[in-house]
């Protein structure tokens, strides 16, 4: 079981690194999709079936395509002339390393405190449905509202302002 975890972890981290480091933008996008897929499988491994499928459906299905579309629409697919990394890339890297160090230190410090829970939670879609409509009905409605607003917003923001001839 550990082997699968390590495999998936390697896949996700590799995808993430590729997404960040690759020169070619579309390759980064695809690497991201690999990272998303790795994560989805990690979710499934953690028995969060619904979350996994949602992850696949949302991220791989929609977000990845969105990113790719964005890349194409902004002509990101050609190779950028000057370097891919911003001038003060070292600072960014240092900060990221700092963040990782802090998080890792925190995790290692506290991991002992959390009891190892082995039981596999039997979660069925019905429970999720009930939870969604029961306890989490307010967040559900709010997210619904948010999504409509976001779609309309994105459309308006990205709408081409050309003057349509009034028919």
């Amino acid at each position, binding site marked *: 079981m550990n082997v699968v975890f390590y495999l998936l972890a390697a896949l996700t981290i590799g995808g993430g690194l590729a997404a960040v480091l690759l020169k070619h933008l579309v390759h980064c996008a695809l690497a991201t999709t690999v990272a998303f897929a790795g994560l989805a499988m990690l979710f499934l491994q953690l028995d969060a079936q619904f979350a996994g499928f949602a992850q696949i459906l949302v991220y791989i299905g*929609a977000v990845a395509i969105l990113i790719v579309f964005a890349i194409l629409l902004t002509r990101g697919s050609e190779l950028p002339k000057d370097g891919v990394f911003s001038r003060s890339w070292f600072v960014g890297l240092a900060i990221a390393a700092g963040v990782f160090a802090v998080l890792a230190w925190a995790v290692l410090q506290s991991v002992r405190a959390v009891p190892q829970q082995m039981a596999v939670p039997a979660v069925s879609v019905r429970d999720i449905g009930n939870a969604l409509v029961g306890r989490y009905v307010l967040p559900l409605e709010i997210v619904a509202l948010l999504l409509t607003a976001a779609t309309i917003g994105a459309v308006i923001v*990205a709408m081409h302002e050309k003057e349509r001839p009034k028919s």
Partner: protein
Amino acid sequence: MTTPLAGYLLVAALLFAIGLAGALVRRNAILVLIGIELMLNAANLNLIAFWRFGPHPEALTGMMFAIFSIAVAAAEAAVGLGLVISIYRHTNTTELDKINRMKG
């Protein structure tokens, strides 16, 4: 022996750091968005991990949170990319360093 919680947390932390590095280092706006997406996913992973290894998995809070965060992240990505496209239409570049004028 299933891998302990720490494993997942570490993976999430690493993924988060990579996402942050991407956001900070890369020049292109879309890469920053990708970095942000990675960070969000890392967070989701943490959520699910804690839900799975947490005391009351049947309470579904962790998973619910993750699901909602996925939805929100999708919306955010949509709007973010919409913005990048419209900025591109105005300034014909997605280089973040060049986009520093507030003028409309």
